[in-house]
């Protein structure tokens, strides 16, 4: 009864605004990560990251090994692309990208069923010290991008501008999107590897900075993960921040605000307040890239939703078509109305089961009738729920009104460009107004106008 007086009560951090969707993580949170059997064919787009697409290196008919470089980073903000199976390059052609739907050069590779790994990939773990430059080089070579969904090339993030003083590295273990449990499973099953990866990232950042704090930010609905990481924190000298379960807790700016009470300035980046944020999955990939020289050609995804028979957490090769995953998960139990890449709030609805898993795919959700909301949009009743939900302090309903009237100047004045498209407003809207759609459009229009 008096436990609120207890001395070591954990302080829980949070941010203003946000929403509380139903978590729906119970479907998969206790499912250990399973390896998906090798796909027979993979589709690997040369653009799976923010920035320029990679340059193709192989010709049709070439033999490849698992982990072999097939696309080379083009320019500073770009990432290497590797084959995820061994076999033969069947084709290189423009196919619709699963996240943007625009046509992107894509390698189609047919498996030889052998899964022969590139010789450079090491088999055994060997304790070793790496220099900052070595780490950045290895991470770059491995084609690692942010695995939380944004897919920003990690090597770029590891080399912040020299004039920015970095004092904190936050490893993002929030996983605030409902349904998704891929990060959680990784934290429970590979905590030591994630920690080693985080220490590598810290080491890389220490090239120009000293005494960087390492903090793991985990939402309080992941008790087991918090417990595990707390048990390691003395040995490896890091902190664990318990965060309130609230969407969008995992959004970079909100996470920094919650843990450090710092606000990334409007239009700025975490660098500007001395912080780098990396996802737990990214930390794990960095561990593999440094200790094993293993490129990023597989990742953990959550397969869930009301329409799929067996809900699982899977280790999947990049480029695996959804069809294979559906088959492995026992098929559908009801007619599927919507397939979502990512979480249900920010994820992207895709139109075909031929679409492949890419580096930024955190999960695949199969929604049937019950979950798909097709209610008609109604007029805004100015209830203010969107205002309360907006973690950025915007007035979504007003912005929507301006965009509808094409008053882009006004929308800009009301900070439309600060919108992070988290969807909290649209989630909360009782009139079912497509606010995110409106804001994406409005932003594009403003950017178009300014380019002219």
């Amino acid at each position, binding site marked *: 009864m008096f436990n609120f007086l207890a001395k070591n009560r954990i302080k829980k951090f949070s941010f203003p605004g946000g929403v509380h969707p139903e978590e729906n993580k119970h479907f998969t949170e206790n499912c250990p990560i399973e390896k998906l059997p090798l796909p027979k064919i993979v589709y690997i787009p040369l653009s799976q990251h923010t920035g320029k697409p990679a340059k193709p290196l192989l010709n049709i008919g070439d033999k490849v090994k698992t982990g072999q470089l097939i696309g080379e980073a083009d320019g500073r903000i770009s990432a290497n692309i590797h084959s995820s199976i061994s076999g033969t390059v069947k084709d290189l052609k423009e196919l619709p990208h699963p996240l943007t739907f625009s046509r992107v050069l894509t390698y189609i590779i047919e498996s030889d069923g052998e899964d022969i790994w590139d010789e450079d990939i090491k088999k055994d773990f060997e304790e070793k010290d790496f220099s900052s430059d070595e780490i950045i080089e290895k991470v770059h070579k491995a084609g690692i991008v942010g695995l939380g969904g944004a897919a920003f090339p990690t090597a770029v993030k590891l080399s912040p501008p020299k004039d920015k003083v970095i004092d904190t590295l936050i490893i993002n273990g929030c996983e605030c999107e409902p349904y998704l449990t891929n990060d959680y499973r990784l934290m429970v099953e590979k905590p030591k590897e994630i920690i080693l990866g985080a220490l590598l990232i810290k080491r890389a950042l220490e090239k120009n900075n000293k005494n960087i704090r390492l903090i793991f930010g985990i939402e309080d609905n992941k008790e087991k993960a918090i417990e595990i990481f707390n048990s390691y924190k003395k040995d490896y000298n890091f902190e664990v921040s318990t965060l309130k379960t609230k969407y969008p807790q995992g959004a970079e700016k909100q996470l920094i605000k919650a843990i450090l009470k710092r606000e990334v300035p*409007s239009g700025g980046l975490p660098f500007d307040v001395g912080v780098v944020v990396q996802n737990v999955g990214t930390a794990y990939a960095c561990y593999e890239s440094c200790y094993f020289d293993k490129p990023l050609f597989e990742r953990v995804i959550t397969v869930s939703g009301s329409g799929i028979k067996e809900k699982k957490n899977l280790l999947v090769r990049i480029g695996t078509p959804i069809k294979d995953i559906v088959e492995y998960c026992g098929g559908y139990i009801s007619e599927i109305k919507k397939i979502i890449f990512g979480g249900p709030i920010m994820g992207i609805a895709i139109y075909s089961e031929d679409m492949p898993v890419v580096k930024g795919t955190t999960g695949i959700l199969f929604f049937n009738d019950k979950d798909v909301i097709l209610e008609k949009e109604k007029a805004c009743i100015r209830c203010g729920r969107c205002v309360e939900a907006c973690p950025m302090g915007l007035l979504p309903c007003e912005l929507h009104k301006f965009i509808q009237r094409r008053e882009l100047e006004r929308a800009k004045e009301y900070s439309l460009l*600060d919108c992070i498209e988290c969807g909290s407003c*649209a989630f*909360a809207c*009782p009139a079912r107004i497509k606010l995110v759609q409106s804001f994406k459009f409005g932003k594009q229009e403003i950017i178009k106008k300014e380019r002219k």
Partner: protein
Amino acid sequence: MNGKFIVSVSPHIRNDVTVDKIMWSVVWALIPAAIGAGYFFGIKAIFLILLSVISALISEYICNIIFKREVSIFDGSAVITSILLAFNLPPNVPFFIPIVGSFFAIVVVKQLFGGLGYNFLNPALAARAFLVASFPQTMSASYTAPYYGTISGFDAITQATPLTAIRNTKIMGTPQDLEILLNKATSWESLKNLFIGNVGGCLGETSALLLLIGAIYLLIKGYIDYRIPLSYLLTCFILSLFILPIKRFPNYHIFQIISGGLILGAFFMATDYVTSPITKKGRIIFGIGCGILTMLIRHFGGYPEGVSFSILLMNVATPLIERYTKPRVFGKR
């Protein structure tokens, strides 16, 4: 296989609160007070309410057809407007009054401005103001005593509602008369009648108790924000401690809060989403503004009651309040 999946922009899940759900909940929340109206003022009260609702729905439907809008009679908003309008009518008005009022509320105040979400005045209150201006005699002389009490709630002789009695005495009576009246008005007996609703007044405004039952339900559900009613009532409470008629009466502030249409106005009309600010700070300012105006009208104005006019005036000020209470944008100074 292609083409059978729905593709839409995120988010793919939504909160289960919808406009219709909110509106119908407000209707439910008004039911106790409606039943109370029937109990205190007889079956005619129920007829007046139903008449108001029916004519509002017909008006809404006709507008939907004429303006080629989606039929919106089932969304509950016209029902709320018409119930609130009826709640603001004296119990003995002729039957044409709610019909004219509902028509005005729905057609002129709501639909001509674009329908739900676009009106800048509270339709029920604007219609009431229209009725008061068009039929002043009918609207002020149609008060009757509740079945089990008196109009004033404390004196069998007075033929006016508590607030009107005080106003009339202030203008026409001696200071001694006023002191005697206020002594009675702030007595526990009088306050009890005001709280239960056993006094004269508009149909739905008299029973603070029944209105609060509905209001608490809406507050718990999160369908109304506590900020407006709280700041509104608190302002009235504090101001009535200072604006005293002649001398201090121990329960005068409580009397001010539960008499007239304040409870109805603060919880059900000032909180109307469409016509009140969307910002948190704005809502507090809106409530304080309503409170100041209400107390000014009650104590110094030409009408005995000022709730409806205060809210209407603050409705007009809403865009301005919003402009100056924008929340601070994350990362901006």
